[in-house]
């Protein structure tokens, strides 16, 4: 725009010069007499009355001639002279004006063009030449004729005149620039006019002023005055225009905005209609929510809150993000089982049957659950206990939850806590956050559709924790029977009663559960299964299930007891039964493959015996290595307690000439390393009593290794095993075969009790150990050990390391070894004395 303006100005600047020419040429107009001849105004002119317009000198204007008298005048006069007089009628309506009906001042004009239209009318183009006045009307019947005189202008002069002329140009220019419809040339023309009189005429012709005002301008022969009156008009117009432009802009912008909004809203409506989400369906949604809220019957406080939100929802525009946020919140409220409870049919016998049906043994757990049911029957409003089942993987903790729910006739909800690090997963996000959701507990309750389901909090010990908070701490509120009757999920923001839920948590290892949490729960330990249990479980549950899964009928395949024993002993080593099931599955698949290959139906039954198992499962995966491994001195069998159950732990010690350094390998934890150090210190300090010179130990490096080096090991309970390994090595006496031991060691040689006795003895019996050395203080725990395991093992209870050595190396062998060592030590000492007296100085 600016550019265009500029170029226009340039053109103006360039073309301005010649305009001065007529001025300067005015002087030689006389010299152009021959040329001017044409333009000189005759004294007598025919008059053409015109309506509705004033022709100014210098303007070229088309006129339509309709009146017959005018047509006659043109027909008669134009062949003689092209110059006529134009006078404007005072009254536009008058058809046949007399001289008195015309304004006294008109213009002499040259008729430049003439065209006749088919309908008799004539169009002419006139060019205004000079202002004229009527001197005297002349007689004539067809048209008016008059003797006219040219009205000479009074040119303005002086600084004031020049200033007003300049201002007129300036304002007119502004006015033109502000009017977008101005013809391209208008500005050029304006700026090219040098003569102020012409300027006034040009503007007078083109300004939108009424006829009388135009006529006034025409009649004004004093140029100064004409300029001023045009200036008044132009200024007024300019003011108006500015004001109007401002108003228009204001109006337009406000109209523009509201129209824009309206337009968008209409579009939105159309889109919503397409999506079926228009206002009507929203109203329906809200109505539906109201009904569902009534049906859900939450506590009065919650009801009031929800109804307030519902009312707010009605006033929110459906397209706003808040609407959908609120909608999903209200949907949660109406979906939650505020008053829906699972029907309680407490039948202790039936429950017992269901528990027995699904799980073998687990006597302690079942008894606790039955107790809970009994209490529940007597006191239906009592708080539910929070049970925590602890045991190695694969012992059936999780599936126990489902059977409990079955036994109680309630829904089962399972919440896997493994890997949850965000506290908000438990307790929800505040609704102010985008994408906020209720916590998992509320979600599970919503899914269960009952407010008293059995909720399993699985893998409690696998809870994580990071900068987002500690989910375990959030669980504290959930799991406290005194607090959870008013559990407030952050998203829900109103209390929900969790106290009727039966929470059952599971964990592999209580050590990883925060003490505040374990404190709130009733821990029930589920030890691993003994071989006997496994056989029973396999027979009753695993084999039928695997047969079914592999498409075999019961009569097509029978498992013999020795086969199950072989699988359990030689192909698995675990506390649970998962691997056992997989191996049974592998055998079943192999049989299924054979069955499927048989073309014609057969009644053959596959009898799975130990040989068949070996055929299908290949070489044994685990074998009893106790004998060969513990036959050398320095190897001791310890017992460890791990999250996956009890484990047999071999501790190997060896020594070689060196400088008394100790090396511990096998990915030992700090506690185990320290107990190894303690064992070594104890042995060194008591070495003399075994007839061993401590200095001899200092001339050898000791290496203690715990095989299965890839598995991390920790804990203090291998203390006596470490000590025994060192003693056995140093005394060169192997440990009695099939003997295992566990116990913590003090630096003074006392044996302290250990935990996980059940799992450890179970592991020992599974591995074929015959005798176990236990701390005396663990004797009372013996009652808890599976009787079948207790029967298979022989226990020796010890209080001191001396007793450990006597029991593990054998009284006689120990005595012999000590004697032998003492004699050897004396011999060495004698030898050393001899050599030192020779002054050779073997160790300088």
């Amino acid at each position, binding site marked *: 725009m600016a550019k265009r303006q500029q170029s226009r100005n340039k053109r103006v600047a360039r073309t301005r010069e*010649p305009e001065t020419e007529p001025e300067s040429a005015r002087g030689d107009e006389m010299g152009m007499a021959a040329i*001017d001849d044409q333009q000189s105004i005759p004294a007598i002119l025919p008059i053409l009355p015109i309506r509705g317009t004033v022709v100014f000198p210098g303007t*070229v204007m088309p006129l339509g001639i309709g009146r017959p008298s005018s047509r006659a005048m043109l027909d008669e006069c134009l062949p003689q002279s092209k110059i006529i007089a134009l006078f404007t009628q005072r009254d536009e309506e008058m058809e046949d004006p007399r001289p008195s009906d015309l304004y006294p001042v008109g213009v002499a004009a*040259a008729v430049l063009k003439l065209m006749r239209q088919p309908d008799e009318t004539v169009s002419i183009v006139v060019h205004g030449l000079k202002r004229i006045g009527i001197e005297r009307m002349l007689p004539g019947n067809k048209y008016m004729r008059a003797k006219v005189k040219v009205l000479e202008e009074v040119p303005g002069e002086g600084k004031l005149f020049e200033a007003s002329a300049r201002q007129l140009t300036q304002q007119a220019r502004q006015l033109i620039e502000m009017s977008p419809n101005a013809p391209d040339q208008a500005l050029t023309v304006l700026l090219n006019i040098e*003569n102020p009189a012409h300027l006034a005429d040009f503007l007078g012709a083109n300004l939108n002023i009424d006829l009388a005002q135009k006529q006034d301008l025409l009649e004004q022969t004093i140029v100064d005055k004409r300029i001023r009156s045009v200036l008044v008009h132009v200024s007024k117009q300019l003011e108006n225009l500015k004001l109007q432009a401002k108003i228009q802009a204001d109006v337009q912008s406000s109209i523009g905005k509201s129209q824009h909004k309206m337009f968008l809203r209409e579009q939105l409506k159309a889109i919503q209609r397409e999506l079926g989400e228009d206002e009507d369906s929203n109203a329906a949604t809200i109505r539906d929510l109201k009904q569902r809220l009534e049906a859900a019957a939450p506590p009065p406080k919650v009801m009031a809150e929800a109804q307030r939100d519902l009312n707010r929802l009605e006033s929110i525009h459906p397209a706003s993000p808040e609407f959908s946020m609120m909608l999903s919140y209200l949907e949660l409220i109406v979906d939650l089982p505020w008053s829906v409870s699972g029907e309680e049919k407490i039948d202790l016998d039936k429950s017992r049957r269901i528990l027995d049906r699904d799980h073998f043994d687990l006597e302690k757990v079942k008894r606790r659950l039955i107790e809970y049911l009994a209490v529940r029957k007597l006191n239906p409003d009592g708080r539910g206990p929070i049970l925590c089942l602890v045991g190695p993987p694969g012992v059936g903790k999780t599936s126990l939850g489902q059977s409990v729910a079955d036994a109680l006739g309630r829904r089962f909800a399972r919440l896997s806590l493994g890997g949850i690090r965000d506290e908000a997963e438990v307790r929800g996000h505040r609704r102010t956050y985008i994408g906020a959701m209720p916590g998992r507990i509320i979600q599970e309750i919503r899914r269960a559709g009952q407010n008293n389901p059995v909720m399993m909090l699985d893998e409690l010990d696998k809870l994580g924790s990071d900068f987002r908070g500690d989910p375990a701490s959030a669980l504290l509120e959930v799991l406290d029977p005194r607090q959870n009757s008013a559990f407030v999920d952050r998203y829900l923001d109103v209390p929900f009663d969790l106290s009727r839920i039966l929470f059952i948590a599971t964990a592999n290892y209580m050590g990883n559960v925060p003490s505040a949490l374990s404190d709130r729960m009733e821990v029930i330990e589920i030890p691993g299964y003994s071989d006997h249990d496994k056989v029973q479980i396999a027979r009753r549950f695993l084999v039928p299930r695997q047969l079914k899964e592999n498409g075999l009928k019961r009569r097509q395949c029978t498992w013999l007891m020795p086969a199950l024993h072989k699988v359990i002993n030689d192909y698995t080593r675990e506390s649970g039964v998962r691997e056992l099931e997989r191996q049974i599955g592998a055998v079943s698949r192999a049989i299924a493959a054979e069955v499927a290959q048989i073309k014609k139906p057969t009644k053959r039954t596959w009898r799975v015996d130990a040989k068949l198992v070996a055929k299908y499962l290949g070489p044994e995966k685990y074998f009893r290595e106790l004998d060969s491994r513990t036959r050398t001195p320095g190897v001791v069998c310890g017992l460890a307690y791990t999250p996956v159950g009890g484990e047999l732990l071999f501790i190997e010690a060896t020594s070689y000439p060196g400088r008394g350094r100790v090396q511990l390998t096998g990915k030992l934890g700090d506690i185990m390393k320290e107990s190894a150090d303690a064992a070594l210190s104890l042995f060194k300090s008591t070495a003399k009593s075994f007839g061993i010179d401590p200095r001899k130990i200092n001339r050898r490096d000791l290496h203690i290794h715990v095989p299965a080096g890839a598995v991390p090991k920790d804990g203090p309970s291998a203390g006596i095993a470490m000590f025994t390994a060192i003693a056995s090595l140093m005394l060169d006496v192997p440990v009695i075969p099939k003997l295992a031991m566990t116990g913590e060691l003090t630096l003074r040689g006392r044996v302290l009790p250990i935990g996980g006795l059940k799992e450890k003895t179970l592991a020992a019996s599974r591995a074929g150990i015959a005798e176990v050395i236990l701390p005396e203080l663990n004797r009372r725990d013996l009652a808890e050990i599976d009787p079948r395991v207790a029967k298979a093992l022989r226990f020796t209870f010890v209080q001191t390391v001396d007793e450990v050595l006597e029991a593990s190396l054998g009284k006689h062998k120990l005595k012999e070894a000590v004697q032998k060592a003492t004699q050897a030590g004396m011999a060495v000492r004698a030898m050393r004395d001899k050599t030192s007296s020779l002054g050779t100085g073997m160790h300088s």
Partner: protein
Amino acid sequence: MDVADRAFRWQPSGFHPGESWAPSMNTFFARSSKRSRMVVVIELAGLEPDDLKIEIHEHRLVVRGSRRSPEPDRAAGETVQIQSLEIDHGRFVRWLPLPRRARPEGMTCRYESGMLWIEIPLSPTRSSPTKGPVAQKETFG
């Protein structure tokens, strides 16, 4: 309704304080290795040489004059009615800014078959001749 329309009621044709019309004009630049010139031809039929004035004013070519409306001769007692009147008549002017290298002192004019030929030599230069304004028809004086 546009506000600006209220300020003006534009007349269809421009403003001509002096002359009524401007004749049409063609302009050429001719160039050879020897000389270059500018040729202007103006369509101006029915003129007497006296009716025409050609001048250079401030390095502008100005052609002005007046043309009588051509009309039939009349026998005695014969009346003529003008059925149409299209040919421009009356006073006219046409002007043309000259390029800088125009040499107006060497200007030659020739009036032939109703065409006015004006030739102005150009001083030789390497710059492109199209730089000067070529044809500008201005309908106002």
